[in-house]
């Protein structure tokens, strides 16, 4: 990447180079963090957020500078980020480590430690509770059918199962469970964890997977079906951290082992979901454990949060759009000439578009240089932004009538003069339409950046999904929609400036 940058920056005028530097410096705040700062990641569910906040407070109390990247992603993204150094610490569960990360089901704690150590990762002792998977049902429904254990489900094929996508795919998840218990329900749906709870409460599904410390189990008065065949492995909560962490920080994390039991964790989760504030829950933990609160928690006002989200959102969408224009215009010009190269360019940008955005993010995160950062989100958005710009530029240029093309040649203009003075202005309407499409798509897609901890208006949307809280979802969704309209409006104005008047008659 750096080598490539160096080779083409040589051909650039000082003006162009200054512009590139400006773009690069915009990228920096997202990519550079001071060396001594510890970055804590969390998965996108309440307990992970709360544990990460507890770790944050604990490290801060020990005098360590900390940043918490909330809801960075699922197991794989966090594990890759931890190994790659994108994050330094995150809460995990022993069962997940053995099954999913090390692919050694049933490994002992000592075996796990050894295997992690070989990859430069250390693990604290367990935090004091087991958050295993469980199958839950509404109390009235289970009583009506007389269901108490998972084995009891065997006789009720009519029950509708709504399971998280992760549980459906896990090696300790649905498939082996259904084989072990010989359960074969007529209908199994994949559904988001938080949305699954409301579906369960409404009676749209009968059985769902849950974590045994989920606040919702208590809140909704759900029944946990007994794992009578002892299928689910132990999921003891621990912190994973990089061995490069300072001894002071590692010590602070290890202090937290055996400090939270199941009942306490359910209360903290419930508190977090009730107040919609993970830091408040963490504060409660410290309030009752250590008594004194060292740094009083000040809740960020909505205005500040909104400003932060919108700024980051515009940063993500804006920088990626500028890059897409810088790269897309020349590619569009080349593509307009057709031939094998032209087809290859249009083909490649088209193929990128078919990769689901979430998959593209997941593919980029493990690569060196990327990781969980705004940089990764910007690159993904940039790649998505290319197609409309390349295609519209190429089409706009190809659609110039032959007589105009030939008139420009006959006037004795050089190829460069023709392109600058005649062809690009004639194609401007189409090119700008492509840029507009890219901009609006980017504003929408940038909400997914929050999945890899890159922030933006996706942050409240994802938190809201996890908390099953529509107000929080709308806090992100409404500004994102308004932003898209605003961008559309801005580009409509820009059309009036940039499209020559003679073409608008």
């Amino acid at each position, binding site marked *: 990447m750096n080598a490539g940058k160096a080779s083409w920056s040589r051909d650039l005028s000082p003006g162009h180079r200054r512009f590139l530097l400006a773009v690069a410096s915009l990228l920096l705040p997202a990519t550079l963090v001071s060396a001594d700062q510890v970055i804590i990641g969390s998965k996108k569910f309440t307990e992970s957020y709360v544990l990460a906040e507890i770790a944050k407070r604990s490290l801060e109390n020990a005098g360590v500078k900390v940043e918490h990247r909330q809801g960075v992603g699922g197991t794989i993204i966090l594990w890759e980020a931890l190994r790659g150094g994108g994050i330094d610490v995150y809460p995990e569960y022993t069962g997940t480590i053995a099954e999913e990360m090390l692919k050694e089901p049933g490994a002992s704690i000592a075996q796990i430690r050894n295997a992690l150590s070989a990859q430069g990762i250390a693990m604290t002792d367990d935090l004091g509770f087991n958050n295993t998977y469980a199958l839950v049902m509404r109390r009235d429904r289970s009583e009506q059918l007389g269901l108490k254990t998972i084995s009891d489900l065997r006789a009720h094929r009519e029950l509708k199962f709504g399971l998280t996508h992760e549980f459906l795919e896990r090696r300790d998840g649905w498939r082996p469970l259904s084989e072990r218990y010989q359960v074969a329900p007529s209908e199994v749906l994949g559904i988001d964890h938080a949305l699954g709870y409301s579906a369960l409460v409404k009676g749209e599904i009968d059985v769902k997977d849950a974590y045994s410390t989920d606040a919702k189990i208590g809140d909704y008065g759900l029944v946990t079906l007994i794992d009578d065949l002892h299928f689910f492995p132990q999921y003891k909560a621990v912190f994973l951290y990089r061995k490069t962490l300072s001894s002071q920080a590692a010590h602070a994390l290890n202090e937290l082992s055996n400090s939270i039991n199941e009942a306490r964790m359910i209360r903290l989760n419930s508190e977090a979901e009730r107040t919609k504030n993970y830091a408040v829950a963490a504060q409660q933990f410290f309030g009752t454990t250590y008594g004194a609160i060292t740094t009083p928690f000040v809740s960020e006002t909505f205005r500040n949060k909104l400003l932060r989200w919108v700024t980051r959102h515009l940063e993500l969408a804006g920088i990626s759009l500028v890059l897409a224009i810088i790269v897309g215009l020349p590619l569009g010009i080349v593509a307009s000439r057709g031939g094998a190269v032209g087809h290859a360019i249009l083909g490649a940008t088209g193929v990128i578009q078919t990769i689901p955005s979430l998959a593209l993010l997941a593919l980029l995160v493990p690569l060196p240089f990327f990781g969980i950062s705004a940089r990764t989100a910007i690159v993904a958005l940039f790649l998505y932004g290319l197609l409309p710009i390349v295609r519209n530029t190429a089409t706009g240029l190809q659609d110039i009538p032959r007589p105009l093309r*030939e008139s420009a040649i006959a006037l004795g203009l050089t190829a460069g003069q023709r392109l600058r003075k005649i062809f690009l202005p004639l194609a401007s309407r189409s090119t700008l339409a492509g840029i507009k499409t890219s901009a609006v798509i980017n504003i929408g897609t940038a909400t997914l950046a929050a999945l890899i901890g890159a922030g933006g208006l996706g942050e409240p949307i994802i938190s809201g999904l996890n908390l099953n809280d529509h107000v929080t979802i709308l806090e992100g969704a409404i500004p994102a929609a308004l932003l898209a309209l605003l961008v559309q409006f801005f580009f409509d104005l820009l059309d009036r400036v940039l499209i020559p008047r*003679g073409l608008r008659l």
Partner: protein
Amino acid sequence: MNALVHFRDVTKRFGDDFAIRDANLEIERGKITALIGPSGCGKSTILRLIVGLVTADTGEIQFDGEKIAAETIMKIRRRLGYVIQDGGLFPHLTARHNLTLQPRLFRKRRDEIEKRIMELCELTKFPGSGLDRYPLELSGGQRQRVSLMRALMLSPELLLLDEPFAALDPLVRMNLQRDLKEICARLQQTVLLVTHDLAEAAFLGNEIALMSEGQIIQRGSIADLRAKPANEFVREFVSAQRGLVQL
């Protein structure tokens, strides 16, 4: 050897079809040569070969003693003016901007350009008030006048007109034909005019070259073509275009 352009045994094929077959043609200085023939006979290709929009497969074309080739074409183009059927004016530029594009890129002085525009407005009877209009704001006839002005900006040695009046209504066409004849006479302009209209060729051309299937069949005045048609095709072509007067 007074001719400005020489075609020597020029052949141009598009795929398997001959557009031009072993064509030999001279365009003499100071005269209007009208190239006429049925559509698809290759007459536009003759112009496009001179401008370098297409290149000959075999044979040689000389412009003022210089062979038309990739190395020479950019210089030669500056000595040509080219007007096509619908003018080829750039819609994103005003009439004035269409006119100044070429001289500005060739670094002519601003006041010289302005002077030339005024001269040409008078010559082509184009109102100065129309200069700041966009092509779409002009009538078809006005567009062709601007197009002619654009072709004449750098005082070209050869003016190439490819069916310049075909898309205009009869009255406008007649006025333009009359004005063009006057302009060319005043400038002693060498012109190669492509048309499918024998009346236009007869009215404007000092010399007519009749083409069929990529070859020049006969050259001469309209009287020559009538009196001594070279073959049956010429006789038929001439008689098919009898005007209203003879009906």
